[in-house]
């Protein structure tokens, strides 16, 4: 079946999964364990998605990496799972036999994967520093780099856009893994079914002018705070990025970019309340002298054990104030003044904090819309994938053989993402199994045949 050409090949599998985050991995493992051949296509340099970057997760406060990494390593060595990182889907086409042809392109990482030992010699040799996106720009990284310490595969890559082509990495690499001659590689996967597990994007709070529009140094996003709380954190402790001061009055501003018609996202992001409560607890663990205040509209601790977790935070003296922050102003020493209406008293109040965390919401990952051949894929008004039969067949799209898992269908927390991936696995197992009989019969819509 393989007809290898220079930089392109055609391969066959049962199911292709777009996105190697927790939902994609869970689905891949379920399917591979039932005997399917699965491909994971991940646009990032590592699988593990967002979850691998988180600190501890609510409401059990177990460490996120401890949950993700075993799944990551299990998937990466599973004989039924083929993983392509640094790879994006370009085009999908449906053939007359009911197969999907998924054209993917692997971008060059300029490192030979089989030779690299992950020793980081190239990283030490590289002289160029740019912002580290895996640490949400809090710190720098080299241009030749291992994405992050628990990345999988733990292989170096060269960020060619920022490379000054000095060649130092190549000299430093003993096994000779650096290979600047790499070109993009195309693969066409012929599969029975596709699972879209492409996750979400984070709301960019820079567009909220009254919260500083990204200009205030000590206003950070929740993801930046999350990184500061991870054991592999950039500052080795919690510090204000504006001047390295240890914060002692931290504010959380909830619904920054959620439930807000003015930014075009009227829905609730479902996770921000809980992750903020979690971070508040973790900050109190890291900085016992600190005060943490959470400014909220409604606390949405709706899941199993969530409300108990919220009550626990209150007992730990996290302050909860009902009221949306109207505006933030920056003082000369970098402290921040927050103006809000304290709903409980009906008074306008101003509070000084030395660090503000914007609990930014999540948005649909609209990259899916850019893939050619998916123009007929139905979306909901918020650009998430639409669930055709939400009640009886959740996580099925309107196109045959295309399913969704995790936050591709809407905001959800990790347990729900994992459950959705499980549900999709069952549906895909059935779909792949009954592939020949049922699908050919249901091919009444001709427009995809072309």
């Amino acid at each position, binding site marked *: 079946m393989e007809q290898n050409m220079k930089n392109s090949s055609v391969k066959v599998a049962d199911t292709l999964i777009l996105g190697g985050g927790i939902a994609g991995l869970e689905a891949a493992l*379920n399917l591979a*364990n*039932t005997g399917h051949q699965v491909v994971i296509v991940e646009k990032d340099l590592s699988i593990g998605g967002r979850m691998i970057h988180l600190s501890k997760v609510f409401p*059990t406060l*177990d460490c996120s990496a401890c*949950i993700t990494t075993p799944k990551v*390593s299990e998937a990466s*060595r599973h004989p039924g799972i083929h993983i392509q990182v640094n790879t994006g889907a370009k085009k999908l086409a449906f053939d007359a036999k009911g197969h999907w042809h998924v054209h993917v392109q692997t971008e060059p990482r300029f490192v030979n994967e089989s030779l690299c*030992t992950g*020793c980081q*010699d190239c990283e030490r040799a590289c002289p160029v520093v740019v912002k580290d996106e895996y640490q949400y720009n809090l710190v720098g990284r080299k241009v030749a780099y291992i994405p992050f310490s628990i990345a999988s595969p*733990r292989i170096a890559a060269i960020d060619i856009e920022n490379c000054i082509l000095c060649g130092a990495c190549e000299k430093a690499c*003993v*096994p000779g893994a650096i290979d600047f001659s790499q070109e993009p590689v195309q693969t066409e996967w012929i599969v029975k079914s596709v699972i879209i597990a492409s996750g979400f994007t984070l709301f960019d709070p820079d567009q909220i002018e009254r919260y500083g529009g990204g200009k205030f140094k000590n206003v950070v996003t929740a993801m930046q705070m999350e990184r500061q709380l991870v054991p592999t954190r950039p500052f080795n402790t919690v510090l204000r990025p504006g001047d390295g001061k240890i914060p002692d009055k931290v504010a959380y501003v909830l619904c920054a970019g959620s*439930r807000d018609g003015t930014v075009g996202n*009227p*829905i*609730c*992001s*479902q996770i921000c309340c809980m992750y903020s409560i979690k971070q508040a607890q973790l900050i109190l663990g890291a900085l016992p002298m600190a005060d943490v205040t959470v400014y909220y509209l*409604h*606390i*949405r*601790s*709706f*899941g*199993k*054990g*969530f*409300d*108990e977790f919220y009550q626990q935070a209150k007992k730990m003296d996290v302050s909860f104030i009902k009221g949306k922050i109207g505006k933030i102003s920056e003082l000369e020493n970098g402290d921040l003044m927050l103006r809000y209406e304290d*709903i*409980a*008293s*009906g008074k306008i109040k101003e509070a000084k904090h030395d660090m503000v965390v914007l609990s930014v919401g999540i948005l649909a990952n609209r990259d899916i819309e850019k893939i050619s051949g998916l123009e007929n894929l139905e979306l909901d008004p*918020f650009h998430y994938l639409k*669930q055709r039969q*939400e*009640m*009886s067949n*959740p*996580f099925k799209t309107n196109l045959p053989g295309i399913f969704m898992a995790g936050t591709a269908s*809407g*905001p959800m927390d990790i*347990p*729900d993402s*994992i*459950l*959705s*991936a*499980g*549900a*999709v*696995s*069952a*549906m895909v*197992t*059935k779909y792949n*199994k*009954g592939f020949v009989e049922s699908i050919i019969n249901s091919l009444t819509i001709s427009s995809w045949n072309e």
Partner: protein
Amino acid sequence: MSKEPESKEKRIGVYICRCGSNIADYVDVEKVCTEIKNEKNVRLSRVMMFACADSSQKDIIADIRNEPLDAIVVASCSPKLHLHTFRAVAERGGLNPFNYVQVNIREQSSWAHSDHPDQATEKALDLIKAGIARVSLSEPLNPITIPAENSVLILGAGVAGMRSAIELADLGSQVYLVDREFFVGGRVAQWGKMATTDQTGEELVKSLYQQIRNRRNIKVYTGAHVISSKGSIGNFDVQIKVIPRYVEPPCDPEGFSKAMEACPVTVDDEFNFGLTKRKAIFHNFRSEFPAFPVIDMAVCTRCGICARYCQGINLDQKEEIVQIHAGTIFLATGFNPYEPRKGEFGYGQLPNVISLQQLKRLLELTTGEFRFRDKKIGSVAFIYCVGSRQMDGDNKYCSRYCCTSAIHAALQLRQEFHVSNIYHLNKGIRTYGKQEILYEQSSRAGDIYLQFIEDEPPVVEANGEKARLTINDILSDKHEISLLADLVVLVTGMVPRENNDLNRILKVPIGKDKFYNEIHPKLRPVETVIDGLVISGCCQGPRNIHESVGSALAEVAKVYNVINKGEIQLEPTLAVVDPAVCEWCGKCAEACPFDAIEKVQAEKGWVAQVIEGNCKGCGMCTPVCPTNAIDIKGYSNREIRSMIVAMSA
């Protein structure tokens, strides 16, 4: 040290990886290699540039065949990276993969101690010695397989149970769908229009049961409950008792309606939460499943009048005991709506205070004008968090579905029944995710939201035909607001069903919130600590309908993985009991979190035995054994002791 067991003569090959310079820069690999050569049982010892490289792998395989070697040790990076690579190498060379040991001298020696290369070398040597000691004692292990019946017993025929039954049947499993009630559909059948699709529960249940009827490999038992259970994953033997319906085919609809009319016994209809009455012979709605009425023997007087009209009636039917052999047991027993205490917000005292579930039935039963107790309803007040998020009571949890559901009902009241004055007395609205849109729609349409302080719930009093509600409204500076409503709806949360007998028989783990508990919400969200016993839907915790269906399908995926091959493959690193040494004391069984140890009769008396299907190989049982009779394969007492000794030198 003489008491340490002597290791068997083995021919061992040791490979030391330079990992380019990563190991070699700090660990003097040549020195290590030379010293290792002198170790007992070591036939050869080599340094390699990259042990994981293809050429190196081939060299190792050649050595295994040519020497030949019984076991190999590779000292390189962390086993998390290459354990499986080298196990495969061993296998290709003809060795059992467990006769291979990887020693981590990169992450745990050269890199960690790059500040002291001499110490890194010394430590590497120690670690390799331990590896050699271990591999000398290692036994070949093979994956264990146990037979597994490709059949599933599903307890609870609500949407979660029904949906998973269909999926499992389609995947080829035999399914036994068992419900305590006489009609399937669970709570959803009662639900009416559902948020956010406006499909009715009745429609959903109907479509599911039609699918169930079309599948030959689903066997449905209604009016049935579990009376005993034995066995473990792959092979559960469960007995269920089936209560007869006292109605059997043929039963023509006309005769049945006459029989129902004639029946002299009238009781509250639980399906409509007591809003209506039913007879001793009854059905729920027209598309119920099975499409057969039932005689409720608890209230039937056996007068026999019904039998005059309907030929299918057979009052002599007997209870039946059915044996089911199943590979796994699925729990989808669902929830009960919280029943408010008498007097809680006027419930049971004021005539116009009802629960959300009652309202949903009322909406289903009403056509035209919205009336309750013969009075036109112009204003409705919802009180939220009744039975959830209790400050004083036991139910500390949020019931998750109720905010959205109540708002959805309010929108239905406004749009379909033109009720224009709707009040929501809440504790903070939790319409998470896209459900927020319903909240926005409702308030934009003019529903009035008032929020009470957590420990100051609103007060409900009678006021003529209406109810007067008083609330300290947080949203108006805690101003006391008073309002009149024709109907008060208590937005009642979920509590688990009372299944005390079932829980006892199956030993279902129960959480602090009294719902069934999963092993881990993220790692194993549908499994319980009892292998083969899985949970989904609202018996695990409050959920809305599509979340329940989602969890049910997730459960299908897990279960199907386990049973579809007719056998279960287990990692060989399991506990094993030496019956010669065991003097049953029960401590291991007590320590085991997975119920994997049973007491069996041996020649000399009672001894422990490992239920391999349940054992996860954690080893929690080993330190508690007073006679050292229990061991974990691959981490045996001898192996670990030999490693401790080998490194001590």
